[in-house]
Structure formats: structure tokens, C-alpha cells
């Protein structure tokens, strides 16, 4: 995790998630303060007991035994409080994490596609999973450690001062030494760590690139060559790792040494004091010395921990900021407050003077007009990557037009609810998407209440029934993420069945290009034809038969609609379409 600064508001946002649990947090804080106080008090009491074990015949059981039972009681209370603190912290942490995740996911459902299209899915998933985890680990545990650490330092200091101010001063003066040493090492090793993670990143990118395309490496006999390059990076990684690991591992021994010096100093000062005050009423006792030695040991620990906690907190806040940026992302324009539910759709679509582009610098669709009567078929034609999905995005209102309007049955689609608009369309994309689950669940996605009878009939009409029955468990066969072992053609048939089951009045279809075998392709074609019968259809077409029979052909090229008309008209125009049409048949 690279170190980054979190924006200012992050902490406040974090606190707003914690606020509902403020009673629990307060309880946790109070209990951990109690824990620290009791934990620190125990050595004092034990020191007092030890004072009464001076030597043979000088053991005062009358004092020792009550102290011991008092300590036992305190230990019990401490343990109980500790357990409560742990439990409460767990609860608060996991609840907050659950809510953050749930909010983030809910946000995903309303984020505009323009945002989702611009972010790699893996990146969003990593915010939702890895970042939230880091945030919970770091932030909430960091908070408790920071708090107990601070209380421990103050408490220890207080107890030491109450036992013997002079010796406490020795500790206070010497302890920052260990802090300085730790900081020094950390700052030195930081640059080594950065170098290590740079080289490691370089190596990971190399491995990723080469192994993903290992077959190409082999096809061109580049095994030795890439191995040489790999070993070169690997050698550099070894050097930088060794430095980073060695330098950072110095922290513990060095601070431990400083602690040992402090310990020796306390022993020296304490023992000398014992000797010089022996017999006096204000005598410094062996028990006090042992208590002070115990404190000297634990006083320095929280300092080292806190410096670690601070970096972890920064890291956690940076992660939280990434998640909150997602949650704070502007949602798509909500449906108009008076949005109607689109109903009784016949399939009339009117596109009036539409302008659209993804980025202002690159205008795409300009002044586009198209009137589609119910039952008409519109073929969208053009080379790969010409922007055919742009039209689908606009029709389904995944994106809003920049100017002009699109209406269905004479109603501007911005004045109806998105849900009802989309329910009017059946969409089969070439880029098939199926979810992990049974075949039945996948087909019934649009109508979860559909009966087995209806599902079966939809699959039959989509020519999917026969292959489904050949699967090991028929309609109950569980398919993995993205269709798992199904072939591309089978996946597309399932997507068709999914639409068949709802059969809305308007269709958006995407004809398969290359990766489907001829027989399946013909089945898909037949299924398409039977669906399109009497319905308005927008079809991204590759097959000449589809194109020729369409009522309107839209010819697209690099995002623009360059021509529009019927097959005969376009051929007569002898433009881009004619060129496209002829080149397919030319030698």
C-alpha cells in the first residue's frame, strides 16, 4: 500500500459511521482506561508485597495475603474489562465495515454508467473489498491502540512519579532516546522500502505480462531472452529487498538496547537510593524498585507502538478516502419527481435532433433524427469499434443525450422512470453476461416468478432447451461466473431465452460475429427472427440478410452516424456503405 494523504473530510465521514455506536465506543474507552490503570496498579501492590518478604523470620503474611487477594480480584476485573473492550471493538468495527460496504454497493446501483465505464471493475471491487478491510484493520484497531498507548504512557509516568519522582525523571529523560532511534531507522529504511516496492512492482508487471502471453513467448522461442531479463530484475530485487528487510529489522534490537540502558539506569539509581535511604522513614524499598523496574520495561513499548499506529492510521484513512470517494460519487440524475411509468408500449421511437458525446472534445453523434414506427427494424452497421454501443446506451438511457430528445410513444424518455423504460426493451448483447447460479435462475432473471412451464417454453423458443437438457442437471445445473463451461453460442442462447421469457415490445439485439459455430449461429438467427416478428428492433447487424431486410440501416464509422437509409438507397448513394458491402465480397 503506497502512502497517500487522505483528504480532510475523511475523518469526519469515518466518525459519522461510528456515531450510532458512540455509547459502545465510550464504554470501550472507559473500560480500556480502567484496564490500563489496573494493569499498572498491580506491580505497585506486588512491589508492596515483596517489601514484606525481606528475609527469614521477616515475612509479614498479615500484609502479604490481603494484598494477594486484592490483586487476584483486580486481575479478574481487568480480564473481564479487557474481554469486553475486545468484544465491543470487534462489534463496532465489523458493523461499520458492513455498513460502509452496503452503502458502497448501493451506490454502485445508482452510479451513472459513464462513471462505471471509466473505472476498471477490478479497481472498484478492490475498493469495496481490500480498501474496506485495510480501513477496518487500521483505523479502528489503530484508535484503540493509540488510546491505550497514550493512557499507558501517562499512567506509567504518574505511578512512577508517585513512587519516586527522581527516578521517574531518569526514565523520562532517557526514553525519548528509543523514540529517536526508532524514527531514525524508520526514516532510513523507508527509502529502501520504496526502492524495494518499485522493483517489486516492475517485476510483477513483467511477470504478469510475460506469463499472460507465455504462448507467444514460446512461439517466438523467447524463453532464454525473457529469462535473462527476469533474472536481471530478480537480482535487483534481491539487493533492494535485503537492504529494506535488514534495515527495518534493526528497529527492534536497537530500541530494545535503549530500553535495556534505561532499565540499567533505573536499577542503578534505585539501588543506590535503597542503600542511601536504608533505615529512614521515607526509605526507598526493594518492592518499589521492582515496581519501577517493571514500569521502566513497559514505559517505552507504547512509544514504539504509537509510531507504528500513526502510519497505519494514515494508511487506513487513505483507504477510507478511496471508498468514500466511491460513495460520494455523484449518482445518475434521478428519475424526474413526476416521472410516469411507461406503459402500453407499441414500439414507436422518435429520435429528434440528438447530440451526444462521451467527452466534449470528441463530438460523436450530431443532429441525429430517426423515426421508428412500431414493428420496424433498424440495422446498425459498421466496422468493429465504430460506436454501435453508443446508440444502445442512449436508447436504454444508460447515458443521457446532450441535446435533442428520444421519445417512446411520443413521451420523452427523460420524463418516465428508467425502470419502466428499460422494461420496454429486451436486450441481447454479444458480450454475454450470465451470473453464477442455476440455468433456471439465469433465464428467470427478468421474471423471477415465472413458472417452470414458462421457462421451459422460453428456452424452447430460444433453441436452448435441447442443450440445457444435455447438461448434467438440466435446468438446475449450476453454471459458474460468466457462464463457466458453456460455449459462447450457448451463452448467447441463454441470454436470448432470458429475453424470450419477458418478450417486451422493443428489442435491442447484437448479432454474433465470429466466435460461434455455424449451426449455433443459425439457431440464434432463427431465434432473433421469431422474436423480432411484429416488434420494433434495433439490431447491430453483421449478416447481409439482416441488413438487407431492415427497414432502416444506420451506417456508423468511428462513433459517427455517416449514412442512413434502406439497403437500396444506400447502395445507390455509393458511399461508405456501398464500399463496406462490396469489400466483403471482393477478393
Amino acid at each position: 500500500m503506497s502512502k497517500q494523504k487522505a483528504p480532510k473530510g475523511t475523518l469526519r465521514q469515518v466518525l459519522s459511521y461510528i456515531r450510532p455506536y458512540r455509547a459502545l465506543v465510550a464504554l470501550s474507552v472507559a473500560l480500556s482506561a480502567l484496564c490500563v490503570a489496573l494493569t499498572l496498579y498491580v506491580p505497585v501492590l506486588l512491589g508492596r508485597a515483596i517489601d514484606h518478604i525481606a528475609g527469614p523470620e521477616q515475612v509479614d503474611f498479615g500484609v502479604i495475603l490481603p494484598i494477594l487477594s486484592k490483586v487476584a480480584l483486580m486481575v479478574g476485573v481487568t480480564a473481564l474489562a479487557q474481554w469486553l473492550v475486545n468484544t465491543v471493538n470487534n462489534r463496532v468495527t465489523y458493523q461499520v465495515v458492513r455498513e460502509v460496504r452496503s452503502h458502497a454497493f448501493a451506490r454502485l446501483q445508482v452510479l451513472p454508467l459513464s462513471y462505471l465505464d471509466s473505472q476498471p471493475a477490478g479497481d472498484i471491487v478492490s475498493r469495496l473489498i481490500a480498501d474496506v478491510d485495510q480501513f477496518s484493520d487500521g483505523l479502528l484497531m489503530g484508535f484503540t491502540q493509540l488510546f491505550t498507548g497514550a493512557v499507558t504512557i501517562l499512567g506509567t509516568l504518574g505511578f512512577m512519579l508517585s513512587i519516586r519522582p527522581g527516578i521517574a525523571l531518569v526514565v523520562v529523560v532517557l526514553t525519548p532516546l528509543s523514540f529517536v532511534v526508532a524514527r531514525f531507522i524508520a526514516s532510513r529504511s523507508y527509502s529502501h522500502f520504496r526502492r524495494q516496492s518499485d522493483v517489486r512492482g516492475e517485476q510483477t508487471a513483467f511477470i504478469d505480462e510475460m506469463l499472460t502471453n507465455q504462448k507467444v513467448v514460446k512461439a517466438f522461442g523467447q524463453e532464454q531472452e525473457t529469462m535473462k531479463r527476469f533474472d536481471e530484475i530478480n537480482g535487483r530485487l534481491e539487493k533492494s529487498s535485503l537492504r529494506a528487510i535488514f534495515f527495518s529489522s534493526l528497529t527492534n534490537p536497537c530500541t530494545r538496547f535503549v530500553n535495556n540502558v534505561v532499565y540499567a539506569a533505573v536499577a542503578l539509581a534505585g539501588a543506590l537510593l535503597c542503600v542511601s535511604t536504608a533505615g529512614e522513614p521515607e526509605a526507598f524499598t526493594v518492592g518499589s524498585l521492582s515496581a519501577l523496574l517493571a514500569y521502566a520495561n513497559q514505559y517505552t513499548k507504547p512509544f514504539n507502538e504509537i509510531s507504528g499506529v500513526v502510519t497505519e492510521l494514515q494508511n487506513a484513512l487513505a483507504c477510507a478516502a478511496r471508498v468514500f470517494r466511491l460513495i460520494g460519487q455523484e449518482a445518475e440524475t434521478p428519475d424526474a419527481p413526476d416521472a410516469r411509468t411507461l406503459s402500453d408500449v407499441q414500439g414507436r421511437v422518435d429520435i429528434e435532433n440528438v447530440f451526444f458525446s462521451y467527452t466534449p472534445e470528441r463530438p460523436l453523434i450530431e443532429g441525429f433524427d430517426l423515426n421508428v414506427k412500431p414493428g420496424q427494424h433498424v440495422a446498425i452497421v459498421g466496422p468493429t469499434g465504430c460506436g454501435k454501443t453508443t446508440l444502445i446506451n442512449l436508447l436504454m438511457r444508460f447515458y443521457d443525450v446532450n441535446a435533442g430528445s428520444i421519445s417512446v410513444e411520443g413521451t420523452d424518455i427523460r420524463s418516465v422512470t428508467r425502470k419502466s423504460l428499460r422494461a420496454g426493451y429486451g436486450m441481447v448483447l454479444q458480450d454475454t453476461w450470465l451470473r453464477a447460479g442455476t440455468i433456471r435462475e439465469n433465464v428467470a432473471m427478468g421474471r423471477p416468478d415465472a413458472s417452470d412451464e414458462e421457462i421451459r417454453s422460453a428456452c424452447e423458443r430460444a433453441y436452448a432447451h435441447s442443450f440445457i437438457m444435455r447438461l448434467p442437471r438440466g435446468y438446475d445445473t449450476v453454471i459458474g461466473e460468466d457462464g463457466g463451461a458453456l460455449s459462447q453460442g450457448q451463452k448467447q442462447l441463454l441470454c436470448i431465452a432470458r429475453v424470450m421469457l419477458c418478450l417486451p415490445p422493443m428489442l435491442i439485439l447484437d448479432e454474433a460475429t465470429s466466435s460461434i459455430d455455424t449451426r449455433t449461429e443459425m439457431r440464434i438467427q432463427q431465434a432473433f427472427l421469431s422474436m423480432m416478428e411484429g416488434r420494433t428492433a434495433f439490431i447491430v447487424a453483421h449478416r447481409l440478410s439482416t441488413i438487407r431486410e431492415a427497414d432502416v440501416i444506420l451506417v456508423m464509422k468511428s462513433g459517427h452516424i455517416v449514412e442512413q437509409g434502406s439497403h437500396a438507397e444506400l447502395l445507390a448513394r455509393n458511399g461508405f456503405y456501398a464500399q463496406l458491402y462490396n469489400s466483403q465480397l471482393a477478393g
Partner: protein
Amino acid sequence: MKKLLAYLKAYRRESILGPLFKLLEASFELIVPLVVAAIIDNGIGGGNKGYILRMCLVLVALGLIGLVCSVTAQYFAARASVGFVKKLRSALYAHIQLFSYADLDRIGASTLITRMTSDLNQVQTGLNLTLRLFLRSPFVVFGAMIMAFTIDVRAALWFALAIPALSIVVFGIMLVTIPLYRKVQEALDRVLQAARQNLLGVRVLRAFGLEEREKRAFDEKNDALNAMQRHVGRISALMNPVTYVIINLAILALIRTGALRVEAGLITQGAVVALYNYMSQILVELIKLANLIINITKSVACARRVQAVLDMPAGQKTLADAPKGDAAYRVQFASAGFRYSASGEEAISDVSLNVKPGETVGVIGGTGSGKSTLVSLIPRFYDATSGQVFVDGRDVRTYDITQLRRMIGVVPQKAALFKGTIRDNLRWGDPDAGDEDLLKAAALAQAEDVLAAKGGLDGQIEQGGRNLSGGQKQRLTIARALVRRPSILILDDSASALDYATDAALRKALSSLDYRPTVFVVSQRASSVMHADQIAVMDNGRLAGVGTHDELMKTCGVYREIYATQFRQEDEKP
């Protein structure tokens, strides 16, 4: 695991010295309470200030020696673990280079990438910690107990009681929680899967208006994860309080026993303090040990996964001798068959085909018909499992694999380019090619405009060719294959991202090559193969027909069907 440890051999010295110095450090730490006891009993008891000063200097000296030992130990541990993993990583990478296509298919790139990166990093961390702490912690625990026994046997009996009790608690909780944490991980994976699926299917889900249902389904998984986390949390929350209680009860018992023994004049007050200190040391070490064991468990699992890759047999055998084919043909398939796995169906079976030098062969058929598999047998990407494949009359399995592949230019289905300049990428075809050769190949591959757009041969290509379009990548991969002036050129469905005009221009350029390679054109498009000297029609792994376009239109039903679906209108064309 044994195999992996072999890589540690080179660092035997470091891996022995590391823990040894760590033990030394721990031993000096164990002496500290004895010194303190001496200060109390002799120094304070005898009122001897000089003695106290000397003993405190001894404490500092002990700390200094400890520091030196410990730094030395850290150094050796770091060297051993980093060096070990470097060697292992290099060996793993080298082993992966030996994997055949069949091996790669079976294992998958993403698995290998995880093994090479995060698994090996975890192994490094685990080994480093092991070398530093694995001996130290038990040593301190038992050392402290033994020291206690040297002070006073009766009092030390409490150690013999407390240590097993602490161990049971610490390791018992670990034993219970480790499998539970695995379950948490599984629940987290389900949450992750739900999020990823939702993002990938966002268009379909919104088209069906399923946002609310998706939220509910996600929350269900999220809640399940939450419940699991809290369950584990409750159990591991016991660790600190319970160990705290045990250690303190032991200290109380120790002081009580100590008091009785001091009363009886058997031990001194300083000895009681020393016993108390030893007990405190134990707790710290046990907790460290528990953390260490969690870390080691993880590392061992990672190491096993690395080992599993190294254990996979790799490579293809070269035959010393095999029946010869007809040297008049450049490529000859003799009843060749292939199955991807021993139990699976044949992907291609009984294919016989003869191709003369300089001929262009079209291979056409539907998805899964075996087109690509067929041409993969020529450069031995896969070895025929029945029958034979010959190049220039020699069974391909008798060729040195590198030598064989040097004769063949392949343009794979998936256009893959690598980070670096265009020149670097094209030189994969031939490391000795000059700029002129590269430019010529690019021109033939219709890639001149790609070079122009990217700044010529020095143009930078990003990882995986991200900064190029599909068609641009494809043309560069074709150029790369042409750079080696191959005697056999295989275009495996490699014009799919090209528009028809570019495709046609490419075909024309290929037919004009002065060195007349034998060309295999694999395609789903009839238009890409119809002008070939001969066309092999694949259907369900079998050769459904061989011949020219006109012959096949008369004799081959499958070919006619493919042609008809793509060119239904040709005859009626105005």
C-alpha cells in the same frame, strides 16, 4: 517441501548462524533477572554501592552484547530468506518456461502469476521470521523455566504448571480460530464475487431493473460475512484476558510460595523478584510465538503451492527417430489426431493433408471444430496424440523445438504485444533484423499507419499493447511474424479485427512475398480463405473436405453451408 529446502542449501551458513545468534541474544536476556537479584541481595542488602555500579554496568554490557548478536542474526536471516526466495523465484520462472501449451492450458496464467508474486513474498516473510524467532521464543520460555528451577525448585513448580496452561489457551484458541478465519475468507470471497458480477453485468441488471434485488442479495452475503467475523472475533477476544489471568495467578502463587520459602530462610528476597521477572518474560514470548505460528502456517501453505508448480513435469520429448514422410511436401499431416486430456474426446482426429512449398492453405470451420488445434501441431505447440505431422518430410517431434519454431511465423488469435518499443516487439521475430527489414515487414502487414501514429519503430507500446486498438495490434503481430521471413506462416484467425478492405490488402501483400512461404490461413470467414490454393474444411474435429473453393462448393456440404450463411445474397447481388 523437501525440494524447496534444497534452495536453502546455498545459504546453509546464514540459516544456521542466524538462529544461533538469536539464541545467544536470548541467553543474555535470561541473565538479566539474575543480575537484578544479585543487586538486591548483595548490593542493597550489603549496602555495597561499588557492587551496584558494577552490576549495572554488567546490565548495559549484556544489552550491548545482545544488540550485536541480534543485529548479526537479523542480517543473516535477511540474507538467507531474500537469497532463498530469489533462487526459488528464478527456478520457478525457468520451470514455467519449460511448460508446454498443454501444461499452460491446464494450469492457467493467473495461478502462475500468484505463485510468482504474492505466494513467494509470503514465503520470504515466513522464512525470515522463522529464522529470527522460531527458536528464540521457545528457548526463552523454557530457558526462563529452567532458570527458575535453578533459583528454587519448589517455587519453579508454578512455572511447570503455568506454561502448559498458557500453551493450551494460546494454541487452543489458534486451533479453533484458524479454520474459522478460513471461513471468513470464503465469506469475503462471496462478497467480492457478488460485487464483481454486479459490475460486469451492470447493463443487463439495469436493463431488467434488478438493482433493488441485487442490493438485497449483496446485503445477505455481507451480513453473513459480518456474522462470521463477529463469531471469530468473540473467540479470539478471549486470548488476551485469559492469558493475563493465568500469568497473574501464577505470579500470585509464586509470591506466596516465595514468601514461605524466604520465611524459612531457603531463598532471598532478590530471588523472588527474579522469579517474578521470569514469569513476565514468558507471556511476551508466548504471544509472539502464536503470531509467528499463524505466519508460518500461511507461509507453508504458500510454499506448498509453489512446490506444486515445481513438481509439475514440464516439457516435450524430442524423438530420436520416427518414420519419414514425403520430403516433397512442406507440411504433411498423416492421420493426425489430438486430445487435450487423456480422458477427453479427440479435438481433432484422423486428419490427413499434404501441403506443397509456397502453397496457401485455408482452414475453415466453426468454433470448436479444431481449426486452431490443427495448425498448432505444426510448431509443436501441441504434439499429435495419434498419427504424425511432418515438416519437409521429417516428423516434427524429431526436430529441436527451437529450431523448428524458428522456421515458422505464427500470428496467434489473441494479439499480444509487450511493453517496449515497436522495434523491440518486432525483433521477437528475428533478433538480428535491421530497421529496414522491420519497416518492410510492417509495410507488408499494412501496419505503416500504426507506426506513423505511434512515432515509428521507436514508438512505445504499453503493457499488453493497451495503447493500441485491436486492429493495430493485430497488424503489428502479423509484422512480427513476417520479420523472420518464415518458410511457414500461420495466421490463426488473425484478421478478425481487421475490416474487409485491410484484410483483402493483407492477403494480396502476402501472395507477393519473394520468399514464397507456405501460408496457413485459419478463419471463420469464407471470404478470407476462398482464394487459397486449397481449403481444409474442419467440422467437429474431422476433415470434412479438402479442395479449392469451386471443388468444395460442389462436393462439401459443410463448406456450402458456411458459405451460404455468409454470402446468401451473392447470387442475387445487383
